[in-house]
């Protein structure tokens, strides 16, 4: 068997000697940190986000949040068990493209000594990146919600609610609007739309919600009127739209023009970012959605939000807020692992169990990874656009404002 590197393997005896010597040196070093006279080596954390291409809008916000999170950890003294080592963010642009994601993840891992990775916002990209991470044995922590990320993975960690839980939360929210919800589900007809809408369809009977219309459409249409015409004819009193931002803008405007009085739940993704309000304006008021994170849900979240707002002028949106929490989870794992070795960081993540501080900024306020890298306490949060801001309204424990029924 060939070793990948040119250096010959040390003989067993030499290795033992080195180990012993290393141990002695290590003890000496850790026992006398201040005497070393130089800063501890930084801990490299990879961050994979699309800052160009069709998903750039959200990716750019993610990068701003990732930088903020690393600064916060470093200002608080870095990783103390590693001699105050600072986190070093290694950024990579995955260009909203699955092929680029694969090569970039590979490149990032092989050309840097990474302890962990976070990314990539879109589930389609994260699925690819996590495959590469699994093979390279580097832990990846992500806010992406696809349930597929929890299947057959052992280095992938998902601290927030899963896609299947989002569907359930949406259905439960519709019962707050009407005792007998009649829901029209419209969804774009590719993987994202069909997977999400099927979740809604499967869980509706269990939640006692009637689905009166279930209609796929082709994303990027020129006109939403025929579709809304159909929704109107279905007699629904709630509309679930599983759509990309562009379609959703047209749908919301058309509903207004038709004069249809219907509670709209836009789900997550493009619906819960500041840009949505910028595009739709006052029409967004009262619209509901679901998120895995919201900026008003805890004191810590509000503090981070204030700082992010100061830097970017916009509130800290779902995905970006979640990744700040993720960075603190990584810091917590590094602290306990007392090592930059990715496998040891992963082992420490498996034992993570926190209920306070920035790392616990998740709906429910607790994080502990169980089977498939899922947070056993993970749950989504129901949100509503109120006065240009996104307010947490569901479930009761997480609600920070009352749901406005219009």
């Amino acid at each position, binding site marked *: 068997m060939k070793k990948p590197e040119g250096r010959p393997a040390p003989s067993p005896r030499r290795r033992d000697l080195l180990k012993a010597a290393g141990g002695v040196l290590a003890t000496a070093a850790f026992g006398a940190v201040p005497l070393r006279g130089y800063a501890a080596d930084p801990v490299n954390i990879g961050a994979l986000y699309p800052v160009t291409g069709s998903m750039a809008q959200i990716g750019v916000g993610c990068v701003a949040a990732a930088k903020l999170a690393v600064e916060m950890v470093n200002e608080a003294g870095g990783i103390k068990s590693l001699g105050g080592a600072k986190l070093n963010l290694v950024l990579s642009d995955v260009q909203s493209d699955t092929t680029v994601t694969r090569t970039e993840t590979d490149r990032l891992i092989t050309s840097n000594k990474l302890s962990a990775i976070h990314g990539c916002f879109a589930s389609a990209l994260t699925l690819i990146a996590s495959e590469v991470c699994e093979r390279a044995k580097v832990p990846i922590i992500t806010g992406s919600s696809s349930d597929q990320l929890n299947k057959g993975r052992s280095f992938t960690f998902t601290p927030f609610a899963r896609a299947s839980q989002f569907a359930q939360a949406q259905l439960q929210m519709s019962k707050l609007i009407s005792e007998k919800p009649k829901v029209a589900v419209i969804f774009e007809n590719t993987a994202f739309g069909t997977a999400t809408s099927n979740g809604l369809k499967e869980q509706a009977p269990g939640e006692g919600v009637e689905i009166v219309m279930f209609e796929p*459409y*082709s994303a990027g*249409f020129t*006109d939403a009127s*025929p579709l809304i015409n*159909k929704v109107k004819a279905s007699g629904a009193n709630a509309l679930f739209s599983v759509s990309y931002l562009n379609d959703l*803008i047209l749908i919301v405007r058309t509903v207004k023009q038709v*004069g249809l009085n219907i509670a709209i739940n836009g789900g997550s993704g493009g619906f819960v970012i500041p*840009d949505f309000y910028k595009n739709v304006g006052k029409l967004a008021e009262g619209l509901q959605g679901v998120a895995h994170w919201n900026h008003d849900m805890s004191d810590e979240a509000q503090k981070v939000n204030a700082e992010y707002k100061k830097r970017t002028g916009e509130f800290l949106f779902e995905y970006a807020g979640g990744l700040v929490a993720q960075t603190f989870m990584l810091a917590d794992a590094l602290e306990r692992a007392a090592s930059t070795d990715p496998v040891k960081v992963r082992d420490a993540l498996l034992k993570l169990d926190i209920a306070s501080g920035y790392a616990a900024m998740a709906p429910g306020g607790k994080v502990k990874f169980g089977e498939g890298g899922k947070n056993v306490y993970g749950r989504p949060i129901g949100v509503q656009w109120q006065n240009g801001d996104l307010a947490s309204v569901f479930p009761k424990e997480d609600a920070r404002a009352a749901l406005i029924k219009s």
Partner: protein
Amino acid sequence: MLETIAQAVINGLLIGGIYALVSIGVTLIFGVVKIVNFAQGEFVMIGMYISFFLATQLGVDPIVSLLVTMPVLFCVGMLVQHFLIRRVLGLNDLPQIFLTFALSLLVLNLALMLLTANYRTVHTWYSDEALHFAGLYVPVAKLAAFVLAMVLSALLWVFLHTTDLGKAMRAASQNRDVAQLMGINPNRVFAVALGIALALAGAAGSLLMPFYPAYPMVGQVFVLMAFVAVVLGTLGNVVGALVASLLMGVAESLGIQFVGADSGLIVVFAMLLLTLAVRPSGLAGGRRR
């Protein structure tokens, strides 16, 4: 039921008006200059961004900004003809196809780089308003776009049939060599044709802006429909393109209503294939007007 059909027809006609502006431009260029302009959608996109920036920076209403986008794109059209298309005329078809295709990709990717992929919308007082009557509704922004699209199409028809330049254009489209023998300067005629076609694309952009978001890829959405309309209405036939666009809008809308919301394009392309099978040269049967 009747109400639903009526509403679907209204929706279809309104969006068909926008398809018409794009497809008339494509068919005019093909009729007169004999090249297919694959970049037509990108000029719609440029028109949208001009309107967007005029609206957000100077507060100009997007529909009023038509007075800027049309002349600007008219000039762009003349320049494109003079510096690019003129060079490849008379060669075989391939360089011409690649020229407009390359232009499309260049403009699209420049827009992605300079303007980013973000959606940009303009919100006017009439963006979300609609007229309601007899249980039906007509969105104000789309109605305005439709009416102006029809007015522009009518003006183009009058221009082509009453002015010397217009007649020269029709002559060049019918037989370029004979037209040249009659003393028509083809370069001048071609430049004006390109100018008019791009001005119409610019107008489509301005008219779309109150109700459709601008983004670099937006042209692709409309140009696809425009090409179908152009073939359906017989290549080079302006009235044919107009009628075909309206028909397609209605077919798409009825398809969504009664077949399924992801069937819009299926209905449109089925219609195209059927027409071609029965009348290979399009609805107008090979006549170019």
